[in-house]
């Protein structure tokens, strides 16, 4: 285990911090499953935090002048470069502390919130550079699987078959034709100390992962499955139900990679069929049985791969239970 995590007990529903880094009155849609993990992450990090946000829904809903929903110092610069803005902040903190110009005994967390477009697509180079340079920061990708802020256009994170406004379910081509980019694979290839997947339907697990990411020295990355009732065509009250099904169908497995070691946090031994997950979302309603079968097959394969990784590069399983 990383020495930084030695004294970390973990959150439970009983010992949650009262602190909120994100304020009410934000303009996220009803049932937004993207702002929820953002709120939870800030709750886990506490007030000694500086946040950077990429252009996207979370930036828009949190900062229409003169209002801000941020209780922590916050900066938005552009779409693609949040990881590098965070690099600059982290370097500044380091230099200023060393030179005695910044007096702070506690560690200041530097955290990035960026959507899938900002991470998988336009910002991948910036992310790669920041991970490679080893800055001590946390990058949280809130992946709602398309460019929601601009009106639901496809991204490299959009799953196979999904209808978006630029991968429409047409008469000939039925939705997204490519498989979701393996971002975790890319991130893990940078040999960073901590990478994890998380999901707001498992809020305590998510908060614990954010806290671990903050405690560990060096770059940490959390790929958060984030739902979007508006873009996906789900009922707002189903936002977290869909999120839960993503784990239970093995579509989005929960795991950590600590120093290259894979740990599956929730093994799904008896997965539900993916169709159950797909049918709740209007973006998949055009899918043919063949397409659904293909998705099922790929999901099985990907999960098998993950099991193998955990087997080859893992530690004895320590399953966490969500309360």
């Amino acid at each position, binding site marked *: 285990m990383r020495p930084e995590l030695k004294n970390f007990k973990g959150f439970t529903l009983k010992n949650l911090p009262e602190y909120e880094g994100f304020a009410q*009155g934000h303009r996220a849609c009803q049932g937004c499953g993207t702002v*929820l993990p953002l709120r*939870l992450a800030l709750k886990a990090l506490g007030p000694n935090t500086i946040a950077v946000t990429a252009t996207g829904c979370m930036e828009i809903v949190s900062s229409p002048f*003169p209002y*801000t929903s941020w209780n922590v110092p916050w900066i938005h610069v552009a779409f693609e470069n949040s990881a590098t803005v965070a690099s600059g902040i982290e370097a500044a903190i380091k230099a200023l502390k060393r030179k005695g110009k910044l007096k702070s005994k506690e560690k200041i967390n530097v955290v990035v919130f960026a959507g899938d477009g900002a991470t998988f697509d336009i910002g991948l180079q910036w992310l790669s550079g920041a991970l490679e340079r080893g800055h001590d920061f946390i990058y949280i990708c809130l992946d709602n699987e398309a460019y929601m802020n601009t009106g639901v256009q496809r991204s490299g994170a959009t799953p196979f078959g999904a209808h978006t406004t630029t991968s429409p379910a047409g008469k000939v081509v039925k939705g997204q034709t490519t498989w979701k980019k393996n971002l975790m694979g890319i991130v893990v290839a940078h040999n960073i100390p901590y990478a994890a997947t998380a999901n*707001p339907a498992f809020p305590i697990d998510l908060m614990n992962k954010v806290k671990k990411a903050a405690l560990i020295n060096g770059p940490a990355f959390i790929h958060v499955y984030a739902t979007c009732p508006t873009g996906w065509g789900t009922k707002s*009250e189903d936002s977290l139900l869909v999120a839960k099904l993503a784990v239970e169908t093995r579509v989005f497995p929960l795991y950590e990679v600590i120093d290259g070691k894979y740990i599956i946090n929730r093994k799904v031994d008896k997965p539900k069929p993916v169709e159950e997950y797909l049918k709740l979302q209007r973006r998949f309603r055009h899918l043919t049985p063949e397409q659904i079968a293909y998705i099922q097959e790929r999901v099985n394969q990907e999960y098998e791969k993950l099991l193998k990784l955990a087997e080859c590069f893992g530690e004895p399983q320590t399953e966490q239970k969500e309360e």
Partner: protein
Amino acid sequence: MPKDQGLMGWKELAPGMYILEPGNSKKFKTGDWRAFRPVLDKEKCIKCGMCYILCPDICYQQDQDGFFICNLFYCKGCGICAANCPKKAITMVLEEE
């Protein structure tokens, strides 16, 4: 074009249009986005706090008796609390009723 659509004079702005007051969006009411309102059945409630932790709009706060109460100034009526309450203690009721 109608003149003077500005929110405030340019001299009143902090440099770079920074917002100096943290979390001031809490002055902004989002409760009027709501068509349905969550109603808590205190008989069924076990005070687990699931509604509190899962609310995207940070509406729930614990009262003196330990119940988590929804702040309707902010509640957008998404229904996540009702859908995820382990005891089905929350029901969504049409605002008009």
